[in-house]
């Protein structure tokens, strides 16, 4: 019975994804497996948000979860059919017969994924709870939400060590599935992390293949998965792959919008872009900085090209962002959880620190030295940045957009490490920059290849 309920719950999750992103990334029966992954991942956002709001009612039961999700699905379908043309649903059949996986074409990707899958499962037998950060932030959070509904708010009374201000995408998703099953098992977080670990490269490959040649898509996917840090992050149960996935999805969507001028006319598509960007804020706090970076880049590109419907497009994207930002906003306004940065900030300490220019130089030196390390893939970023600065400057909208994202990303994190971090900046850079670069890694790859290769075809949404 529990497994039947779980199946219905997972199906609801899939339908949410179908309704929201049907046809935007892959057309009907094109890349069925990737389509399945993408819709489930986006569906996780809706179901985890609904579960979070349900927690306020206490005494959660599987039936309560399913009925609430059904209620929201009906409302969602009603609004999407009547008012917004971008949301439409015709047939959301998942036809297993039409899954055509070309093994010869992708054999290298499958080879690496197979090796990593083996290591993934071996590591998860030894450490089913993940590494310390995952235990502290995501696993502990999921247990607080699931174990005793009456005391789930205890989560926000913990000491600073546990980062209670982190958003609840992973925690809610895991806790929701435990609630549907009515028991707690580590197989759930392991499976979720494995799905993202497996699904992201496949989606990445197919999406890149839509705009670049087959070889380029293959090379870029290898760039993504070949280095052990990718699998290390997944095995450790960190949320960086999930964040990286949603970040790439929104940047790719915007990138595609700028490739095809016909797409660019419809302001409704910017609503979708804003919504996708907002999802990142529910996955990890870095998503908020990312959203700001995307909006600043959009404004910059629109201003540079004197875009038609400038304000309308910006308004639509910010409106979309605020809708998907609601869960995070609720979390912070209800529980008054200040972010770690604001909580421990003492202005006098910071002023003393900045006033000595040697400190600032040390931070900048450490920042760039960490980036140059090959393990962090940052050579690509640097080479691309040199291109951007004038060696091979191409006045194309999509290139300007993606490089303005990278440029603002660099500036914003330098600003963050010098002015905002509550920790010793050098220590903070050494412990966090590799993960932040990892989050931007797929975008960096896309930017790099967009300079060197021609667009294969223009995709119309």
């Amino acid at each position, binding site marked *: 019975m529990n497994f039947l309920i779980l199946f219905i719950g997972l199906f609801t999750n899939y339908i949410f994804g179908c309704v929201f992103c049907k046809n935007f990334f892959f057309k009907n029966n094109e890349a069925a497996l990737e389509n399945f992954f993408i819709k489930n991942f986006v569906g996780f956002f809706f179901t985890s948000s609904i579960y979070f709001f349900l927690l306020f009612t206490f005494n959660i039961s599987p039936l309560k979860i399913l009925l609430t999700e059904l209620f929201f699905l009906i409302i969602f379908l009603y609004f999407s059919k009547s008012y917004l043309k971008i949301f439409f649903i015709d047939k959301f059949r998942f036809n297993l017969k039409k899954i055509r996986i070309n093994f010869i074409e992708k054999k290298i990707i499958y080879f690496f994924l197979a090796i990593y899958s083996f290591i993934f499962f071996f590591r998860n037998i030894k450490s089913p709870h993940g590494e310390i950060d995952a235990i502290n932030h995501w696993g502990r959070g999921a247990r607080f939400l699931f174990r005793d509904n009456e005391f789930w708010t205890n989560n926000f009374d913990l000491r600073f*060590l546990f980062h209670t201000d982190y958003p609840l995408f992973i925690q809610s998703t895991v806790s929701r599935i435990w609630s549907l099953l009515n028991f707690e098992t580590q197989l759930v977080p392991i499976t979720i992390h494995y799905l993202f670990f497996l699904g992201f490269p496949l989606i990445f490959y197919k999406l890149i293949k839509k705009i670049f040649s087959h070889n*380029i898509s293959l090379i870029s996917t290898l760039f993504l998965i070949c280095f052990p840090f990718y699998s290390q992050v997944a095995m450790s149960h960190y949320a960086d792959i999930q964040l990286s996935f949603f970040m790439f999805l929104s940047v790719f969507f915007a990138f595609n919008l700028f490739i095809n001028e016909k797409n660019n006319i419809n302001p409704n598509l910017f609503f979708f872009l804003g919504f996708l960007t907002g999802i990142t804020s529910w996955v990890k706090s870095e998503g908020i900085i990312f959203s700001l970076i995307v909006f600043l880049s959009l404004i910059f590109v629109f201003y540079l090209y004197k875009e038609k419907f400038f304000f309308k497009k910006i308004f639509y994207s910010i409106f979309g962002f605020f809708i998907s930002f609601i869960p995070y906003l609720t979390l912070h306004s209800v529980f008054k959880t200040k972010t770690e940065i604001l909580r421990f900030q003492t202005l006098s300490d910071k002023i003393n620190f900045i006033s000595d220019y040697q400190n600032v130089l040390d931070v900048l030196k450490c920042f760039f030295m960490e980036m140059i390390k090959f393990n962090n893939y940052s050579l690509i970023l640097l080479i691309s940045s040199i291109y951007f600065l004038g060696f091979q400057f191409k006045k194309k909208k999509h290139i300007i957009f993606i490089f303005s994202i990278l440029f603002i990303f660099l500036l914003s994190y330098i600003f963050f490490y010098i002015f905002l971090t509550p920790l010793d900046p050098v220590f903070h850079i050494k412990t966090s920059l590799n993960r932040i670069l990892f989050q931007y890694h797929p975008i960096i790859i896309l930017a790099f290849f967009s300079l060197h290769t021609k667009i294969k075809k223009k995709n119309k949404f």
Partner: protein
Amino acid sequence: MKKEKIILAVIISLSIIYILNWVWHSKFTNYFISEKTNTTKKVNENKTVLIKNIKNLDKINLIEERFKNLYKKIDLSTSIGYVTDLNGSYDWVTNFQHAQYTLSPAILDEINYNGLIIGNFTDINVVNKIKKQDYIFCKKKINKNNNSYLTIEDLYKIKNQLVIYSPKLVNTQGYFYKETYDCKKNYKISILEELGNGAVLLKIENLD
């Protein structure tokens, strides 16, 4: 086309090197290597059963075993105290975090608690030592210029006696102050429940 093939070959060979390098440095490989050497065998013989367990298993699995389902028995509306015999600052923090993870949604608080205290010890003879009152109870103090407290180095020197710490988590703004400890003998510690494997429920009374 040729360029792409070269890039492809470079990436594949580099990644294989990375994988081999990673496997070579992994705990799994090192375990087999270390088992073969005689010196490590001698060291292993001297270690207690628990320390062997910690080495072979992931720490969290051990703590999960210790405190399994304990959260169902305790009052979740108030916070619970936490003491340990771990004196390395990083070790105690990870153990504290693991214990918090296992006992969720109970709140562990090493300062503000009412009555119940969780003891998470690596010394499995903890019960006997507490019964014999063969222990020193210490509280951590973060203080830059105070020599009246014991330092962690002083405490390392204490052998054959259980040192129970009630560490204090203080935001140090990322800068590391010298750790000092206030050790007192006028505390009475009594065992409420033995959970096995170095885990106990305790009550600490100040005799002043």
